[in-house]
């Protein structure tokens, strides 16, 4: 497919439109997207990946804008992926995170991309991780992935980042919510944003006591708690320094390499699960489709276990054949 080769080489040459198109194909799971991502892999590995999550209204987008500005001031090339939910009814979405990107307006070296959850395929974390690869291969130094910390999907997304910052608005009464979502466990840095509001101190204290209960055996990184006012930029410099410290710690302690290995293992398994599921679907089709199989089971002509055996038989045979 010459077209995808052209697209990859344009991306590597720094063509913004090509980068954007590659991300579109990744999002669409378009024919040939896998080959695109495969071709990108060898060019990745140099960017710092930072996940930013928190409840709606915590100030994520505003903080991302200020972070992007700060990284730009230091001479870094910045990529941003902002994930927003799509409507479960129409599949449509209004993606408004871009509105907050005022500090770096017109600066093409901040590549900002909005993504919707597109609900159905359940592969959002794969799509996000692949989009991150495209930005990494393009030559971005820092990639910020912003997502609402609301559920498993989102947790999976930020887990693909090296460093995770969790935003907590003051006096949000959100402590229980955060525990539910498992977000407390994934944060490397906790940011009490809107720290000029009343209740910020109390939120810091609550966070501290919750983090003390957290089990981090075997990891020497102490989760940090910072206060920021994203609208004014207060505390952003300290936040960037802290994120930087975490990146340095990842490299020195070898934890970064461990995380990376775990991520790739997970990625390979996930791809294989998808492919295996595809093979199984095809085999079900060959046997007359799921409806027919279900009818046979309902008529007591066969049972679910025998159906599963029948579907798997040719696949298992193939694997055995390879062993010989």
């Amino acid at each position, binding site marked *: 497919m010459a*077209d*995808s080769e052209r697209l990859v080489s344009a991306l590597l040459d720094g063509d*913004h*439109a090509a980068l*954007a*198109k590659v*991300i*579109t*194909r990744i*999002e*669409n*799971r*378009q*024919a*040939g*997207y*896998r080959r695109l991502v495969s071709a990108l892999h060898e060019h990745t590995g140099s960017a710092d990946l930072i996940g930013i999550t928190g409840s709606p209204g915590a100030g994520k987008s505003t903080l991302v804008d200020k972070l992007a500005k700060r990284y730009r001031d230091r001479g870094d090339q910045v990529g941003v992926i902002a994930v927003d939910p*799509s*409507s479960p009814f*129409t*599949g*449509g*979405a*209004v*993606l*408004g995170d*871009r*509105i*907050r990107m005022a500090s770096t*307006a*017109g600066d*093409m070296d901040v*590549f*900002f*991309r*909005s993504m*919707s959850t*597109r609900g*159905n*395929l359940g592969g959002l974390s794969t799509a996000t991780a692949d989009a991150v690869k495209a930005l990494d291969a393009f030559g971005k130094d820092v990639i910020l992935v912003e997502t609402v910390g609301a559920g498993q999907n989102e947790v999976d997304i930020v887990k693909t980042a090296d460093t995770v910052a969790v935003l907590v608005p003051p006096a949000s009464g959100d402590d229980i919510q955060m525990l539910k979502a498992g977000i407390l466990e994934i944060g490397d840095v906790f940011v009490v944003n809107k720290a000029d509001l009343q209740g910020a101190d109390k939120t810091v204290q609550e966070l501290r006591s919750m983090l003390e209960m957290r089990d981090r055996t075997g990891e020497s990184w102490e989760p940090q708690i910072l206060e920021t006012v994203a609208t004014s930029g207060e505390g952003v410099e300290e936040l960037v320094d802290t994120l930087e410290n975490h990146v340095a710690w990842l490299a020195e302690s070898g934890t970064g390499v461990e995380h990376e290995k775990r991520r790739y293992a997970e990625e390979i398994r996930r*791809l294989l699960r*998808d*492919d295996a*599921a*595809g*093979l199984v679907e095809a085999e079900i089709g060959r046997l007359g489709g799921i409806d027919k199989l279900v009818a046979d089971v309902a008529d007591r002509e066969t049972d679910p276990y025998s159906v599963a055996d029948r579907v798997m038989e040719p696949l298992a045979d193939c694997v055995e054949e390879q062993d010989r």
Partner: protein
Amino acid sequence: MADTETATKIRTLVAKVGLDGHDRGAHVIARAFRDAGFEVIYSGLHKSPDEIVQAVVQEDVDVLGISILSGAHNTLVPRIIEGLEEYGVFADTLVLVGGIVPEDDRAELHEAGVDAIFGPGTPMEDTIDFVREHVETDDGR
């Protein structure tokens, strides 16, 4: 297999450009697009033509809807289109203008590359149907 399972969506940018602060129409169209199943990126108010171009390029939208009620369309719209051409994305972008555009200015905007102009009172379905009919999403070939 997973590779053939696609999830193509129509991506749109609803943009407010220049000094005009009237965004009710933009909000209404953004919502209508969303309800039609499109993905809508909203630019926010007071964007410069460069920022709109940047958003179109980075977000790889299929449709750019520019809302203008200030009367500055003859300057702003061609500048956006020039920018799109510069990045080589003009050909795959459907460019729509919504708002107040006097009859006399329409030919000029069409000449500059605007695909359709929707004035006040246009039924929402007309705009959505137009997008569905004319949009070209990248099919990867």
